[in-house]
């Protein structure tokens, strides 16, 4: 029922009509923003500036992967390392909603500085339906402030353009496949990045731990899926809990953080059921986390709640 070609033709026409001057597209390297970049590039060509911001909250090797991806799809990419600024702003912030707003605002400030330098008026974003639905409005309760909607500061100087606003991820993937974008099947990753996978205050040290744990979860689940042991979940990652528990490492007492593993099956992120991962694969994940980051982590647990009542990410 959804025709990607029709959508692409229509979106390009609309973007051409809407964007009069130069535009900036914020690129995380995920499916939504990459599709947005490709559509906008097709619409306005070199008047588009693709910008990738390294927040320090990205997954392992992510910035390099984004650079490679944009080289492949032939869109020039500008990169800014703003990680110091993000960690500075997040100091002392433990409330998940405040975290999301702080990150949303800082993103926009970085965009605005870049825009001013280049004379850019428009900000093109890969916002999709669940982002604005969950961000809430006069009518709808706020479930989570998505950084690109509720997190936008009210005094934003750029005009926001959102070509994917009415789509869900499964539809965006269809568009990505139609456009031959190599990362069409990449799992979703939240805009605020690993900051919402560190429960409580975000520090460089904690982000480092959860980054390693996420990498292990991804590697093991992708391996198991390639071996035909399980189908690839919608999303699969690790969360660092501020709960410390006792362990015994080499006959010595250990006292470290808890890692929660989350894997969930969904079509559109609006409902989800926890993935039935075979126990031996969970075992592999737990053993690797305990061995490879055992100096920080003493316990690994698996999240078995569906959405609803829980959400996919913990914050």
């Amino acid at each position: 029922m959804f025709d990607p070609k029709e959508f692409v033709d229509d979106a390009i026409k609309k973007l051409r009509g809407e964007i009069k001057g130069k535009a900036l597209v914020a690129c995380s390297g995920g499916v939504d923003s990459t599709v947005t970049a490709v559509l906008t590039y097709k619409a306005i060509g070199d008047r588009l500036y693709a910008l990738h911001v390294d927040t320090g909250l990205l997954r392992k090797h992510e910035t390099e992967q984004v650079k490679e991806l944009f080289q492949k799809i032939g869109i020039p990419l500008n990169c800014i390392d703003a990680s110091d600024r993000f960690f500075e702003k997040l100091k002392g912030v433990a409330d998940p909603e405040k975290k999301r707003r702080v990150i949303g605002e800082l993103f926009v400030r970085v965009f605005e500085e870049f825009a001013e330098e280049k004379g850019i008026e428009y900000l093109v974003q890969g916002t999709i339906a669940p982002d604005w639905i969950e961000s809430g409005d006069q009518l709808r309760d706020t479930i989570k402030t998505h950084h690109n909607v509720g997190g936008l500061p009210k005094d934003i100087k750029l005009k926001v353009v959102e070509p994917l606003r009415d789509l869900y991820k499964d539809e965006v993937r269809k568009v990505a496949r139609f456009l031959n974008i190599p990362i069409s099947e990449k799992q979703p990753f939240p805009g605020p990045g690993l900051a919402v996978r560190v429960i409580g205050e975000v520090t460089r040290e904690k982000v480092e731990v959860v980054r390693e744990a996420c990498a292990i979860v991804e590697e093991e689940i992708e391996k198991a899926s390639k071996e035909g042991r399980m189908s690839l979940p919608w999303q699969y990652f690790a969360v660092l809990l501020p709960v410390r528990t006792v362990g015994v490492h080499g006959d010595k007492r250990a006292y470290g953080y808890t890692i929660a593993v989350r894997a969930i099956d969904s079509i559109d992120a609006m409902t989800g059921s926890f993935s039935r991962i075979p126990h031996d694969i969970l075992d592999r994940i737990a053993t690797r986390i305990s061995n490879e980051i055992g100096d920080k982590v003493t316990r690994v647990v698996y999240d078995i709640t569906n959405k609803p009542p829980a959400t996919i990410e913990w914050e």
Partner: protein
Amino acid sequence: MSEVKIFVIDNGGQWTHREWRVLKYLGVETRIFPNTTPFEELVEEGADGLVLSGGAPRIGLNEELGRCGEYLEKGDFPILGICAGHQFMARFFGGKVEPADVPEFGRIELVIDEDHEIFEGLPKKSVAWASHNDEVTIVPEEFVILAHSKDCKVEAMAHKSRPLVGLQFHPEVEHTEFGVRIFKNFVEICRENR
């Protein structure tokens, strides 16, 4: 004949836009309207049917749900109330809505008690997803109960003479096994009613 027009009345639900998407996929001409839209405007736009979405308001505790009462009073087209829309429908016709003893979040087993066009093609038992704190405890006199679950007596109800149906669960989400079929049946009800 032109396509059936079914509008989604937005009561602020998380899945309002999903309802719109399911209808769109079924080839229906559809749009989302805020629940403050005057009834006359919906008629002018050519509504053949309405879906009253869910939403965060606690129907047992709140008096109104935008102009949904007006639509139920004046509409001669089919109306499908979902979750809060269903609860409001029950209260509007004299039924009762109260906090559920056991709220349902996520997976439930839907058990059909009574044949109705809305459930055509569904087995007696199927998987559905729900998300609610309140529930209909007394069904209005002109309504019959169509389905229940283990923890909720009124998962579905229908008016005895008007094309009004209320569903406590959510047919618009992917995890509801026969959700699309239920929407197809509702589209059919709207088509026949034109």
